């Protein structure tokens, strides 16, 4: 079984995100690239950070390079293009600006190593993905950076691969706990309110367009926008506006621990309705707090569901420690049941 085969045909844009830097994103990416090449697919490739540089700018550890072959489409900056040894043809220049230069879209003409640095903002990534698909890429892979996860938003990419590894923590059980938490967030259910189910996109889009930071689905089936611009630092205000019988609390933007705590401090009504947020990447709640909030009765639903394809695990840490491969994989599989967990440092067959 190959990783590439775990990506459904209908999925066109895929993000690779990591639990931490050096969790094995680039290894995962390389494996996907080589498998896609064997299956004859034309792949587009970009990164919200930087890939293929031989030394990590944070820790100074050696990193694997990224190898591309003819036919692939790559979005990287002009500065990185000059540093790459693959021969590439410029298909298009873009207005995406980054600290490493402007982003250009290239077609690989001769096999070689590349340094990849795409747009830094999600909007930029979205635009560049679209262009690559238009220019002939069958699928586009978006590599993440460090521990940034926002590229997994369904507004940016259709599906996500989560990379984890020993680097997250010296204690195996902590790595498993945190990874399982992240995987669970990415698989949170959608909102099953009957009114929302009927016209999911229009209802939400209309509400989101109004630009209010939060809204309440009242008993009567109307979303009432609250007079706040963001839920950040407004948990108490929002909590005071909840009434008995409300059927959903809609939040635009981020959901943080503080917002939830403030909400809980002023009302008990949160137990009777789901908090509905845009998607899982808007959640900034740690594993421990999440468990506590859940016990207190918090429910979170998503307006747009994320799609987690699989989890890759890297038992090695550049910090110098490593986990027993089998134990690590088994522990992850025990906690993450809904998607495959793959040892990315193992042979292709080892699942």
């Amino acid at each position, binding site marked *: 079984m190959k990783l590439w085969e775990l990506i459904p045909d209908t999925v066109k844009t895929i993000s690779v995100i990591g639990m931490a830097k050096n969790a094995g994103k680039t290894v995962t990416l390389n494996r996907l690239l080589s498998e896609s090449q064997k299956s004859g697919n034309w792949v587009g490739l970009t990164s919200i950070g930087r890939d293929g540089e031989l030394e990590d*700018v*944070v820790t100074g550890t050696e990193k694997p390079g990224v190898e591309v072959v003819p036919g692939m489409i790559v979005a990287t900056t002009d500065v990185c293009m000059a540093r790459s040894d693959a021969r590439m043809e410029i298909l298009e220049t873009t207005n995406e600006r980054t600290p*490493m230069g402007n982003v250009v879209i290239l077609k690989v003409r001769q096999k070689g190593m590349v340094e990849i640095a795409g747009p830094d903002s999600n909007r930029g990534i979205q635009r560049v993905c679209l262009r690559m698909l238009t220019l002939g890429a069958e699928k586009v892979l978006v590599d993440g950076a460090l*521990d940034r996860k*926002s590229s997994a938003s369904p507004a940016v990419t259709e599906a996500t691969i989560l990379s984890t590894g020993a680097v997250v923590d010296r204690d195996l059980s902590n790595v498993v706990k945190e990874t399982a938490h992240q995987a669970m967030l990415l698989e949170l259910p959608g909102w099953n309110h009957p009114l929302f189910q009927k016209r999911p996109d229009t209802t939400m889009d209309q509400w989101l367009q109004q630009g209010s930071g939060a809204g309440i689905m009242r008993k009567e089936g109307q979303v009432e926008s609250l007079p706040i611009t*963001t839920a*950040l*630092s407004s948990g108490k205000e929002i909590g005071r506006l909840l009434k008995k019988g409300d059927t959903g609390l809609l939040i635009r933007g981020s959901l943080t621990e503080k917002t939830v705590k403030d909400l809980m401090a002023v009302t008990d009504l949160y137990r009777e309705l789901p908090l509905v947020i845009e998607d899982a*990447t808007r959640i900034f709640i740690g594993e421990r707090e999440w468990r506590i909030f859940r016990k207190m009765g918090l429910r979170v639903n998503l307006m747009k569901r994320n799609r987690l394809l699989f989890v890759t695990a890297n038992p090695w840490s550049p910090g110098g420690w490593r986990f027993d491969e089998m134990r690590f994989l088994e522990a992850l599989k025990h906690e993450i049941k809904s998607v495959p967990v793959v040892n990315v440092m193992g042979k292709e067959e080892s699942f």
Partner: protein
Amino acid sequence: MSAQLVDLSNVKPYGDTLDDGMVQFSFTLPVPYGEEAREAARRLVLKMGMEEPNVVNAMDLGIGYTYFIVYAKCPHSINYNAIKVPKVESDHMTKEEVEEFIEHQVKRDVVILGACTGSDAHTVGIDAIMNMKGFHGHYGLERYKGVEAYNLGSQVENEELVAKAIEMKADALLISQVVTQKDVHVKNLTHLIELLEAEQLRDQLIVVCGGPRISHELAKELGYDAGFSSGSYAEDVASFVVQEMVQRNLV
């Protein structure tokens, strides 16, 4: 000892004479003070690939720790000519030029928030850039005409900063990170960017970070528009912010 004699393709550390390769190390080992400790320090430096290590000072730190100063010869060299470091690319402007640029091109006041975020309480960096009196003869942003500068101080939570940015309708955020043990600055800096993305504000703001361990290259990975390391002044940051605003149509 004129500069022409230096071979830039083969640069070695300088102690007393050109190319002598002399390097001074200072470090602590968790071992009790004594002859064994000195030998341990010497061997460690040898292991680093240095030659002729000489422990010139060893100090008992108590509780079984010893501090060392070691001199050694570095046999390695660097090709300086082959080095290319990405830097912030904006035309450098003086304070007066920035003010004029704002008046003619931005045509409104620029709102800039500065903060030391997370657990960091070391405000020297952000104070040097923001505060009126500035630093090293370079006035801070508070003194700039056309700039509304707010220094939020130290240990500002990212959440709080984002809420403030929304409230003040900020154009730019300057984040300073000085204390960075165990790479805590990286987590903290990415957390802010992720929050801004979640709030859909990332595109509307110029976000800049600075600190002794921050480079322009790291800024790219963190998701910032620019990174300034030590030795940058208010006008460097201001030049970048105002030009970037115009380039990105944020005026």
